[in-house]
């Protein structure tokens, strides 16, 4: 087990280097030169001397590989430079918004787990019966609905018509209900279907036949033998789901005016605040890679066959 963890950690290094390299190169795709963009925003005159000065200040006069090493060295210490707009360190700005996004994503993730588990199990148990058909229909609808539209529908019915929940903003737990539900709903159907398929595959396994032959109660067979084995592939995909939800929060935050990094990112795009864009990408991707690694380790801990 320990060896597996080490191996998994080492395999992450080239991935992280590649990700950082791409994120670094992204900045150099900017249609205007970064030094000039910086000057334009700080209302400086983009004269030749001024641009040269900023280039030196930002280290843009060095060769590309030196810039990358410099940038990586700073990024590891969470120094992503200063925001072009607020002139404050980018990470400090991000930290203002990160808690809200994490709160939203984690709530949605828990909601997804709680709801998709029973739906998946019951659709497998009642395969092709009414419950399964309804859940299949919902999974088609859920996968086809744009998240932002669903958000507005929920606002219309639950906030404007029924007056149950606030329309937007962050504050009480009531504020959290609609945004997290919006974020979770598309994923619930996916995982429920996945769990159903996975359980159906396990129903035909010899060990299930044997468990029944031993005279175990059907409930024990389902929970201990079928469900436990069926959960493994679902856990892996659910780990990726967390990353997708974190990224998907950008849309939900804009629907519900939720003060998270997604909204911060969109305003950064319109302000051409490149360091913020870079930091947002790196943050999301780092979490995505880390969560996937943790999930792999959890799976290995649960299932000795993977190690």
């Amino acid at each position: 087990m320990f060896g597996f963890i080490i191996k998994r950690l080492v395999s992450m290094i080239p991935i992280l280097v590649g990700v950082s390299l791409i994120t670094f190169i992204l900045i150099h795709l900017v249609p205007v030169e970064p030094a000039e963009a910086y000057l334009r925003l700080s209302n400086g005159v983009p004269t030749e001397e001024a641009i040269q000065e900023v280039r030196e200040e930002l280290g843009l006069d060095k060769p590309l590989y030196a810039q990358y090493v410099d940038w990586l060295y700073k990024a590891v210490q969470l120094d992503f430079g200063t925001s072009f707009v607020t002139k404050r360190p980018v990470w400090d700005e991000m930290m203002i918004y990160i808690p809200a996004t994490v709160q939203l994503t984690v709530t949605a993730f828990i909601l997804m787990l709680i709801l998709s588990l029973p739906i998946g199990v019951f659709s497998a148990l009642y395969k092709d019966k009414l419950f399964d058909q309804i859940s299949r229909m919902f999974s088609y609808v859920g996968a086809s609905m744009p998240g932002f539209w669903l958000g507005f529908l929920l606002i219309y019915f639950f906030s404007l018509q029924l007056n149950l929940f606030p329309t937007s903003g962050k504050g009480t737990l009531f504020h959290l209900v609609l945004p997290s539900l919006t974020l979770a709903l598309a994923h619930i159907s996916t995982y429920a279907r996945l769990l159903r398929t996975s359980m159906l595959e396990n129903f035909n396994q010899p060990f299930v036949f044997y468990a029944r032959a031993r005279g175990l109660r059907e409930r024990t067979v389902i929970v201990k033998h079928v469900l436990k084995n069926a959960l493994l592939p679902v856990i892996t995909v659910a780990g990726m789901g967390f990353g997708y939800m974190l990224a998907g929060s950008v849309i939900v935050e804009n629907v519900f005016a939720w003060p998270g990094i997604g909204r911060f990112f969109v305003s950064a795009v319109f302000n051409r605040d490149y360091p913020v864009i870079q930091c947002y990408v790196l943050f999301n991707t780092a979490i995505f890679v880390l969560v996937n690694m943790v999930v792999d380790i959890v799976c290995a801990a649960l299932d000795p066959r993977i190690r």
Partner: protein
Amino acid sequence: MVKMDRIKIFQNKLLVLSLIIITIMIMIAIFAPILAPHDPNLIDLSNKLKEPSLTFPLGTDHLGRCVLSRIIYGTQVSIGAAFLVMGISIFIGIIIGTFAGYKGGWIDQVFMRLCDVLLSFPSLVLSLALIGILGPNFKNLIIALVIVQWVPYARMIRGLMLVMKERHFIMAAKIAGTTDTIIIIRHMLPHILPQVLVFAFLDIGTVILHISGLSFLGLGIQPPTAEWGMMINDSKQFLRNYPSLMLYPGMMIMLVVMSFNLLGDSLRDLLDPTHK
């Protein structure tokens, strides 16, 4: 057995239904100028936020533009952009995937590492980043989506090529002295393309959702072009009194995406009956 057949017929019905809807949508997109009762971008503030009437069957929006016309023209943008993204992605995927799978060697190694890295980004984040850096407009939206989309196709085609390479008829062709180009184009691609296309149909709904989502954020299609996601964004401040403004474009997105998903699912089941 009887039950199996019933499911098959049911699924074929869905296949036909989804094909009909998609054909109608494509027709609407092509004949939008004839079908639309008004110019979708004609602003007339004296007619703003009108209820449905004979001249404006679905009413008008906050700038007095005809909602029905905008929805009709929106078909062009959503389906057109999605087809464009898919077409370019599959083309790039075929070229790179074929090279990596057929030639192998260092090209394959470099390609696989690049895939590993590109797939470590959540897809939405990578397209958001590219649009953020390049600036939001139609061309950059397509670029951003293609850069995310081509990877799974290239990987899939590479895998299929690897399996195909070992088949006897390919070896026979090689021994007969057929050139690599002809082997790939005449003998390998025809076997691979159907599977790639089914995968593409399963995927196109996601691309349409991405386009409308990014346009909703203001990072995709730019005004005044009529696009469904943007129409929903425009109508959000009128949600309380004019919910229908938001309802129609959303229903269109859902209908189109669901049709493509159903079509992809049914085609996959037809090609691969073991999949449930």
